[in-house]
């Protein structure tokens, strides 16, 4: 594999660009490079590297310039990447996550309906018919970026971001879908609510989802959403029970 570009974040990090657009192909390249760099760090082959994180089409390697120089690091990274192939094997898990679309859970559905020329039911049907791939985790702890949203649901981000998007919001923009694990500012269109906690710091793997996992949204009623929320809150149900069988 060849890096398209290397971009320096001063003396702190290097971003390796592996594709020009987001999607499953880019994610396969990111996964291959991210895993290889992490393995090399674990094996002590990349001294000074502190952290490795993948985005849609790039991997950012954070380093300590007291222990290495960017020049040395970049040479080592290029050599490491050259023999790699994109990670095509779909080893991830498959999830079926409940999503309540009605009323207050999807406040942007009416506006989307007008902009897309689709009625609300058609938007929900299309949104829940897709098997998404987790393309990246980022922005907030455990937040999954899901692709690819069907082209006929694609809209640019809202021009005026909300100051507060409630935790659990399922939101779309362009060809992507996210689930907000935390209350946060946000500029995406809110279409529904998913009650499953995506990040619990006490777990061995705090993030529920991993890059490469696939998931579908299962439309649920308000009553069902309440039942599921209650069972999750009192520990009667674990998030793993939403793995598709």
């Amino acid at each position: 594999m060849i890096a398209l570009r290397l971009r320096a974040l001063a003396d702190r990090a290097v971003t390796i660009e592996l594709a020009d657009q987001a999607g499953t192909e880019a994610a396969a390249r990111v996964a291959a490079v991210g895993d290889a760099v992490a393995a090399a760090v674990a094996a002590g082959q990349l001294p000074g590297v502190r952290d490795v994180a993948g985005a849609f089409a790039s991997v950012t390697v954070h380093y300590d310039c007291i222990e290495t120089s960017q020049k040395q690091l970049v040479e080592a990274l290029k050599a490491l990447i050259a023999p790699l192939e994109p990670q095509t094997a779909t080893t991830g898990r498959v999830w079926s996550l409940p999503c309540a679309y009605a009323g207050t859970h999807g406040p942007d559905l009416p506006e989307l309906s007008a902009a897309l020329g689709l009625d609300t039911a058609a938007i929900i049907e299309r949104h829940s018919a897709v098997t998404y791939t987790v393309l990246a985790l980022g922005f907030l702890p455990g937040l999954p970026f899901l692709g690819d949203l069907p082209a006929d649901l694609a809209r640019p981000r809202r021009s005026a971001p909300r100051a507060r998007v409630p935790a659990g919001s399922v939101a779309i923009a362009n060809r992507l879908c996210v689930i907000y694990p935390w209350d946060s500012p946000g500029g995406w269109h809110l279409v529904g609510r998913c009650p499953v906690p995506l990040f619990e710091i006490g777990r061995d793997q705090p993030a529920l989802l991993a890059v490469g996992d696939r998931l579908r949204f299962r439309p649920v009623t308000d009553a069902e959403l309440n039942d599921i929320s209650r069972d999750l809150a009192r520990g009667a149900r674990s998030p793993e029970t939403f793995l598709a069988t």
Partner: protein
Amino acid sequence: MAALHVLRPGARTLVQDMGFATGRGLGVPLCGVLDPETLLLLNALLDNPPGAAALELAMTAPVLQAVGGAVRIALGPGLAGRIRAETGEMRPIGPWQETTLAPRAVLELDRPERGAPALIGIGGGLDLPRILGSRSTCLAAGFGGLEGRALRAGDLLPVPDDATGAAGGRTLPPPPPLEGPIRVVPGPQDDSFGRAGLSRFLAAEWTLSPALDRMGARLAGPKLDFAPGRGADILSDGITPGAIQVPGNGQPIVLLADAQTTGGYAKIATVIRADLPRLARMMPGDTLCLAAVTVPEAEAAARARAADLRRAAATRRALMQDRVDEDALWRAALEGGMVDMTRPDHFPGALDDG
């Protein structure tokens, strides 16, 4: 076990250390102190491991009482106040001075200079659980530190036992502050702005706007334009503290410790490691100028500054606490090691009564 009892919490007092170094792959921001230089020096002064947790405050200081034992502390720059013993006796305390809070003694600090973020180091650090290798507070997701939140009145901060035996009374001359323009390396997306945009960015004087928090410092100045055919939006990629993103309004934001892990705005430049701590100590209304350097120049500056800090940490001076006027001591320490405090005749006026 000794603890610090929070009598008053201060406006925003957080447990922080060097941050969650390995969480970005999960979307966990670095967090940690805004000023890692001061944390390193306070920990050296207190004989702590370099990354021991401290309290970072902003705007107003907490009022803390030692309970269940003695607690050693040291203050970073911008902080001063008094220690009130259980007997009611008061003694002054200033920055860069290790001292011991006897059991029941209360630390009462003045408002930090200009309200800027400041640090209280604690002997032995804090005995709180480590998450992802860190005791930092992640406010965005409510974990780490003390229950993932800012301190509240009534909180008890457990201090490890090994902190309670030392005598206290040492001081540390901080290295001279770095001055001049804040140095940046152009990129990672300086190509989104073209040569003209980058020149304008580097030539301008920028003012810190009131919207300043642990996530970012917004800069006000001339509107930056994007190169023809380019805009603010990029395919989201990795971020580090110091990266300067420019949203569609053309006004840059320097990302700080709590910044999100990825971002979708073009980043015109990145502040070098050596200069970020002093930027993180600035307040709204302060102005700054920028200068472009290369990556090797940035790395050389980081190594030089690290050597300064190591030297400062190594020159901390032992002083017999009961033989000195601590007020004179901290005023001397403030002067940045201009006097040799191991020699009585070089120390301003307080050793005659020993």
